[in-house]
């Protein structure tokens, strides 16, 4: 019998090797990074909000609505930080204000 049965038993098994393109294949399976709103989309939406707010402020609207619109301008600028939520918030405020105006 063998003097070193462990070595003899294991010597017959060739050590496995990692396939040469392991890293490349692995990288293809990586989860996509979360896709936030792109910088250009943020800039465009903020610019659009600013423009709308300023137009409303300059239009011949009741003074309180113009004042609100003027207040909205810096808020629209803040939309750069969270454009979707900010745009939704501003739109909601305008809808409420316009409905109120419509009732009068």
């Amino acid at each position: 019998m063998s003097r070193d049965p462990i070595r003899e038993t294991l010597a017959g098994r060739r050590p496995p090797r990692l396939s040469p393109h392991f890293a490349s294949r692995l990288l293809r399976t990586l989860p996509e990074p979360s896709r936030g709103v792109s910088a250009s989309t943020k800039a465009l939406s903020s610019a659009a909000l600013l423009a709308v707010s300023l137009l409303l402020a300059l239009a011949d609207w009741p003074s309180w609505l113009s004042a609100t619109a003027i207040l909205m301008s810096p808020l629209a600028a803040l939309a750069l930080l969270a454009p979707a939520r900010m745009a939704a918030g501003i739109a909601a405020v305008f809808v409420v204000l316009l409905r109120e105006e419509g009732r009068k």
Partner: protein
Amino acid sequence: MTVDLDRELIATLVRTSDAELFRQLVEHYQDRVFRLVASVLGPYSEADAEEVTQEVFLRVYRQLKGFRGDSKFSTWLYRVAYRRALDRKQLARHRLPHASDEALVNVAGADNPFEQAARAQQGARVAACMEALPDLYRTVLYLRYWLDCPVEEIAELIQAPAGTVKSYLARARQRVERELEKSGHV
């Protein structure tokens, strides 16, 4: 022996999850992680080793944000690899409770059928004894005698001093030899 990647690179990777930095990390550690995983799974489940290695890196990538740097990155990585490999080993045990049959096929260098049969029998018995060892003993045994890893690398992979690795190896060998003696194979 230190093989840790630059701390700055790890810190940037943790912050950004940048795929190119992750590639550098994978290429740096892939062979060691693979050897550790293969040594846990053993010579009779090596087909699973690459798959588990891939799972380890994917898990690490997903959990990068959770790495606070309290320990070395490699320590965390090897711990994840060892746990994942043990989980797979448990599954494999349920599916394939006996590795001895495969060991029988693997008889090299025998001159005649009688010697071949004797070697096959011994190989199967030794394989069964090694598979019955505690996880850590079996892992160091496979790392040393199957994958031919130096003691220093084994120490790094199982996060233990080199002296402890030598002691594990000696105890693992003693256990296997004792079991073989009991069954009259030595």
